[in-house]
């Protein structure tokens, strides 16, 4: 036991207590804006943390960089401006909502460590372009790391658990961690690439059971240019399909993700396969509901599923809500900001 604890220490990372500079994700705020809103509410209202949603922030260029239209020097200087804004606002811990951003920022910081002349060049570029200076962040932490860190505190505030309300059995979850969270710099990961705990730890803490399956660590198939270009999208679909085929025999009740892209693909490609082949990966013709970690946390805390934005998922989440015993009002599902119902025409 003592030896186990000793070795396990090597797989931990420092997750700051407070003082978070939140960087919204281009993908998450486009596809799952309710998840980012929920995260900010959880930090501020449940955990009483200091977190800023800075209106001056912009993209890190991650999607452009990994689809190779943005040069490295440009990306490094854009990230330097993000750090400059953080220093200006008095924060030290950079918290990118996007996993691509998380990986890229770690990549840039590591590059500056190995090639200090690149850091100096970036400082000059930023100064020349904007007159700005910047400090390096003390930590780069993914929001899922923070939820993991405070999983016990959050559990004590939760209204529901990951248990089937009818049988009392743990619900079975598939966790899918974004490649750029875990595969670029394994030391930046809770549990490292070999034993990533960030999502499995919260599923287990909140009563669920984690499914291990052969293609657990396979990429969702985003592939940047392989999704951005319609002609290449078969790559993305085929990779997600490979995962669905591998996980389906274990009858998961839900899929949990920490990457906004993975969340979208694992949801949308199930919809696409259902439309193309009539095939679903559950026994009831619905598909496996896919949740982000913010959405799951919010649901168990008792937040309204439609305020979390679960109506934006292509795979209906209501079978999961019913299993957990979460009450919801179907009449408010399609209500907009003004309070009127926005008609959903199914065809």
């Amino acid at each position: 036991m003592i030896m186990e604890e000793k070795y396990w220490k090597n797989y931990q990372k420092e997750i700051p207590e407070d003082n978070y500079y939140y960087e919204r994700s281009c993908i998450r705020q486009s596809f799952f804006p309710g998840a980012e809103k929920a995260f900010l509410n959880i930090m501020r209202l449940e955990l009483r943390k200091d977190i800023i949603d800075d209106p001056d922030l912009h993209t890190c260029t991650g999607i452009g960089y990994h689809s190779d239209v943005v040069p490295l020097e440009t990306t490094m200087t854009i990230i330097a401006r993000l750090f400059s804004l953080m220093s200006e606002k008095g924060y030290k811990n950079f918290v990118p909502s996007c996993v691509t951003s998380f990986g890229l920022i770690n990549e840039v910081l590591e590059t500056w460590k190995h090639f200090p002349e690149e850091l100096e060049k970036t400082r000059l570029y930023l100064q020349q372009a904007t007159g700005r200076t910047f400090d390096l962040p003390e930590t780069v932490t993914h929001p899922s790391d923070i939820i993991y860190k405070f999983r016990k505190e959050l559990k004590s505030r939760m209204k529901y658990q990951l248990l089937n309300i009818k049988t009392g059995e743990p619900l079975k979850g598939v966790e899918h961690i974004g490649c750029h969270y875990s595969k670029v710099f394994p030391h930046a990961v809770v549990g490292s690439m070999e034993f990533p705990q960030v999502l499995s730890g919260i599923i287990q803490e909140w009563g669920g059971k984690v499914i291990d399956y052969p293609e657990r660590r396979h990429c969702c198939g985003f592939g940047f240019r392989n999704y951005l270009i319609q002609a290449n999208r078969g790559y993305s679909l085929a990779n997600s399909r490979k995962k669905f085929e591998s996980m389906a025999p274990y009858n998961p009740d839900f899929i949990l993700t920490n990457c906004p892209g993975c969340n979208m693909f694992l949801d949308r490609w199930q919809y696409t396969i259902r439309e193309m082949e009539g095939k679903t990966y559950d026994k009831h013709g619905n598909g496996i509901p896919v949740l982000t970690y913010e959405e799951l946390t919010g649901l168990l805390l008792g937040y309204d599923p439609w305020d979390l934005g679960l109506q934006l998922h292509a795979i209906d989440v209501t079978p999961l809500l019913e299993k957990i015993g979460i009450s919801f009002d179907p009449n408010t599902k399609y209500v907009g900001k003004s309070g009127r119902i926005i008609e959903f025409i199914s065809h």
Partner: protein
Amino acid sequence: MIDYYETLRKDIRFVEGLNACMNCGVCSAICPAAEFFPYDPKKICNILQTKDNQLIEELLSSDYIWYCGQCMSCKTRCPRGNTPGLLISTLRTLSQKLGLFTKSPKGRQQYAIYKTVGESILTKGYCTHAEMIKPELHPEQGQVWEWYHSNLEEIIDRLGGNLNKPGSGALRKISDESIAEVNRIFEVTGGKNFFDTIDQFSQQQAKEMGLETDSEPFSSYFMKIYTEQDDNSNVE
């Protein structure tokens, strides 16, 4: 002939990405692109290790360097610390700088990425924005997306959005000052010049193919490279 190998070595990602490949094939076994495309990441290491500029020029002009999905699974698993995914980035950068990307169907697709993601960064400050994801170009997004996209402000603002308005919140309008600084960074660091290079070589290629690049929102050249499969992409 240009000394492609020495040019590539000036990119720090090349220095980081290639140590000494022993050809074990672990990267090929784990690579999602190798599974679905006629692609093998260890071949990238093999060719680069030869330092043969003729072979490297062929690589830069081919579809071969455009299959990788940049998941970086190769980085985690290589026992020698090589990263074919990083080498791919250096090859793609050089291919675009020299205009060789227009010689292959997959390479030509870079124009569509520049026209969508690239222009969005400079005008909106986002790599992607819900307004850009047109349902007619994204059938996989389904009916939910059609509903959301056509009622975007009403729906997103219920969910913590602040669509195209000043202040914080999802898909807020990024201030003119921030956009101006982003643009200035692109000018100073060569990002703007890189976009112009992609644009110029693509205009030339479009002309050679008898297609135009002027129609809005999507030109005939854009739609061809965006939607059409090349002959080799689905083999094996």
